[in-house]
Structures are given as C-alpha cells and as structure tokens.
C-alpha cells in the first residue's frame, strides 16, 4: 500500500486537483451557466500564490486565501457583464476572459515571468492537504445540493422563466455561481502552484479548458460524485493505454466515446441516478402493494 502510494502519488495528487477544478466547472454548469472561466480563475489563483510566495514574505497560508479571494472577486465581477448572455455566448465570453488573462500573463513579463512563468514556488502542498481541501469543498457542494440554492440552480438550468416566475433573482444567483466557481478555481489553482513548483501561462490554456470540461461531462454535471468519477477516469486513462505507446491517444479517444455514448449523463451521475431509480421503483412497488391490500379490503 505504501509502495503503491509512493509509486502513484502524483496521479493521486493530480486526481485531487482535477476534482477541485471539476467542482469549479460543475457549479457553473449546474446553475445553467455555460462558463469555461475555470481556467482563468485557476490561473489567477495560481499566479497570485506564486507571485506572493516567491516575491514577498506573505505567509503561504495567507497567499492561498488571497488567491482564492481574488479569483472569487473576479468571478463576481465577471458575472455582471455576462448577465446578458446565455449558452454558447457565455461560453465564448468566458473563453475571451481566459484568453485575456493568458495574454496578460504572457505580456506582463516583469511581474509574471511571461512565457517562462514562475519557477521556484515552495512545495508546500501534499496529498493530505489536498485531501482535506477536496473534502471541505465536497462538504460545501453537498450542502448546496441539498439546500434552496441547489434547487434554484436546478431550476435555472432547466427553465429560467419558471425560476423567475417564482421569485428567483436570476442575476443574483448567477453572481453567486460565478463567485463560488471563482473561489474554488482560484483555491485549487493556488494549491496547484504550491504543488508543481513551476507554473506558466500555457498550463491554463485550451488544453486545460478541454480537460476540465471533460472531467465534468464525463463524470456528471449534477451530482457530487460526478467530478470525482470524471477526474478518476481522466487520471487513469493515460495509464490504461500506456502499453499502446503512440496509439494511446487514439485509444483514449475510443474510450471517451464509448463511455459517454453509453452513459451520456456521465459516469457519476448515472450511478447516482441508478440508485435513485431503484429506490423509486421500490417505493412505487411498495405503494402499489399497499393499494392492492386496501382494494382487497374494501
């Protein structure tokens, strides 16, 4: 077991980081916002931490808090202009946001190191810290799912006009979703930079966006289990196909297609739904037999 952990520790850590980014992405999708800003939030959090940790004496713990707060604040601000957009238009506007962040990171060489990025960030984060933070994040997501906020997000995702006819302030809840998405993205971005020693703008580019989206869609867009399953698959996928060497990519492609075709809601969501349906079926059966019993009496 220890041996296993020793050999596979980076995979475990990256799995945990992806889970975090996954929740940042998922909360937006859950609220019906097609945002792909997670990459930008992660970049903000990670650069904030990296710059503070390498160039100032701010305590590490505080740098993470500041990075999280910065990304959350930017998320909240971003929500304001985006309030008028929907669907793919939001996606493109958030893509523009990410691209702007990235080019500013490339451009602000003196401050951000440009393409070279920032090297020598203290490695303060390990598996246990990641585990704890992922746990806390899950706890918050779980609460959101069971509370009125979760119900509002569900309503916004499925039929906005219904939500507003029931008194839901759509703008407010979009801002909340963006702030949470920003905070979680910034938090894990900060942890990532304290984990990987070196960061560069390139880390948060198109590949990052595609990867987080894949984690959430493949795992599931609505349940707590979703990003976990998605991140798990994405973490072990390269390992499964490794013996196939250069055909690995193609095999990964085939696996993605197969999984999503047969489990279109994502692996995690389908598992949760399956349990839910089974429970419903049992309840229904129960009620039916109760009814029969009553009919027999009368």
């Amino acid at each position, binding site marked *: 077991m220890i041996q296993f952990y020793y050999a596979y520790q980076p995979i475990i850590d990256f799995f945990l980081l992806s889970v975090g980014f996954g929740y940042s992405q998922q909360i937006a999708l859950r609220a019906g916002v097609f945002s792909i800003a997670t990459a930008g939030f992660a970049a903000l959090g990670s650069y904030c931490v990296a710059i503070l940790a390498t160039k100032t004496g701010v305590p590490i713990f505080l740098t993470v808090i500041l990075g999280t707060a910065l990304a959350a604040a930017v998320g909240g601000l971003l929500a304001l202009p985006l309030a008028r957009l929907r669907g793919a238009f939001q996606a493109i506007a958030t893509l523009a946001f990410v691209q702007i962040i990235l080019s500013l990171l490339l451009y602000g060489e003196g401050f951000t190191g440009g393409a070279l990025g920032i090297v020598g960030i203290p490695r303060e984060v390990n598996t246990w810290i990641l585990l704890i933070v992922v746990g806390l994040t899950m*706890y*918050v997501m*779980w*609460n*959101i799912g*069971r*509370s*009125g*906020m979760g*119900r*509002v997000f*569900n*309503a916004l995702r*499925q*039929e906005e*006009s*219904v*939500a*507003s*006819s*029931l*008194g*839901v*302030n*759509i703008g407010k809840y979009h801002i*909340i979703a963006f702030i*949470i998405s920003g905070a979680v993205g910034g938090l894990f971005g900060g942890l990532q930079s304290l984990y990987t020693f070196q960061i560069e703008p390139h880390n948060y580019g198109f590949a990052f966006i595609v990867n987080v989206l894949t984690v959430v869609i493949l795992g599931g867009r609505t349940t707590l289990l979703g990003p976990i399953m998605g991140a798990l698959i994405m973490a072990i996928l390269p390992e499964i196909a490794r013996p196939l060497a250069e055909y690995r990519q193609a095999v990964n492609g085939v696996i993605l297609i197969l999984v999503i075709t047969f489990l279109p809601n994502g692996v995690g969501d389908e598992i949760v739904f399956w349990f839910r349906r089974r*429970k*419903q079926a049992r*309840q*229904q059966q129960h*009620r039916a037999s109760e009814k029969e019993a009553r009919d027999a009496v009368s």
Partner: protein
Amino acid sequence: MPSLKLENVAKHFGGLKAVDKVSMEVPPGEITGLIGPNGAGKSTVVNMISGVLALTEGDITVDGVSVATDRADIVARKGVARTFQNIRLLPEATVLDNVMIGFHRREEAGVLAQMLGLPAARRDTKRFEEKAWDLLRRFRMEDFAEYEAGNLAYGHQRRVEMMRAIAAEPDIVLLDEPVAGMNDVESDELATIFRELADSGMGLLLIEHNVGFVTRLCKKVYVLDSGRMIASGDPEAVVRDPQVVAAYIGTSGH
C-alpha cells in the same frame, strides 16, 4: 389581502394591438374569469402582470403599489404567482422537486447558511418537504412524487404547474388555462381546490375556454376580443351578451 388592478393597460407588437386599454381587477378571496377568443390577448395580460412583457401603456398595481416595471422575480416576491399556458416544468427534476422550487420565496436561511449546511437551511428544506407532500396529496399526485416531471401525462403536468405556483401561498394566482386537457370529472376536482384557495383569501384570475366551468366558479368575468374589453360582469349575464356570443361562444350554446 391585496387586490390586483390593471388600469388602461395596453401592449402593442409592432402594429398589432394585442391588448388595448384594458382595465380590470382581481380582488382577494374571489375567482375572477378572463375569457375571449384565441388571440384575444389573455395570455399577454398574464405576461404583463407577471413581469415577462413590458407594458406599452397603462399601469398595474398590487395593493395600490405599481408593479408595471418590476422584473418578473420582484413581481413574484410581491405575491403574484402564475402558471404557463404552454406548460413549463423542470423536465428532468422529479415532481417533488418541481414543487419544492415553488417555496423559494419562503426561504429563511441565507446563502452562507445554505453553503455551510447550518440548521436554518435544513429547517427550510424539511418544512418545505412537508408542505410539498401536503400539496401532492391535495392534488392526488403523491404516487407520482418521484417521477421525472417531463415523463408525466399532459393532465398531470398541468397539476404540477399549479402546485408549484400556489406552493408559496401567493396573494394572487394567475391561472392560464389550468384545466385544458382534462375531462369534466378531473376539472371538477380542480374546481374544488380553486374554491378552497379563494376561500382562504387568495385572489385567482382564471383563464379558461370551458365556459361552463368559468360560469360555475367565477364571481366576475371579463371578456377580451382582439385586445379590447367587450364585456364584463356577472358570468351568467356575460355569456348571454350577444357580442360575446358572436365573438366567442358561437351558436351551438356550449
């Protein structure tokens, strides 16, 4: 309990006067009818009251305060709920969850309390769940509680719309053809519920093409035709008004 008033309300779509200087009132504790031929402007009236459409002219007040320019969610918070003529459900959510969202206005826990799972948030959820089950039983939908709403038969979907609208105990409910697609027996069940709601002090605006149903339930009926109010008053009298018969009811005497 407040009353809903429309004063000289108009809505124009380009050159089309969909609603033309209409005044009416939905008093508390009563069921008020709104009838008229297809395209008369009834749903447009509902959309203007509920904050979906902007008014071209006129004013709408609840309890004397104008809501004419309020956003939809603000109108709802002021106690006006509605159903949609073209059913709008959360298709992937269960029937129970569809009803639960109706309580949004009554939430007491704040955003932070919800995120941290504080007792206030749990209390909300628990309270709403109990009330939702009451509603399900009242509408005889408890067997469908765990059904995905999108898979229900048409008539059952209508019931979900209504439960959701009345969940938060609004002062005014706008019902846009609530019993469309139901037979007489089913409609009568709902009529009982409507009457109970009115008796509890709610003001109901009922849009319906089943004239018998309207005359039986409503204290007062307004008739729209091509956006204009052509008659109003006592239901029995209104449906015998020759103008109404010609424009709306026809001669077969329904």
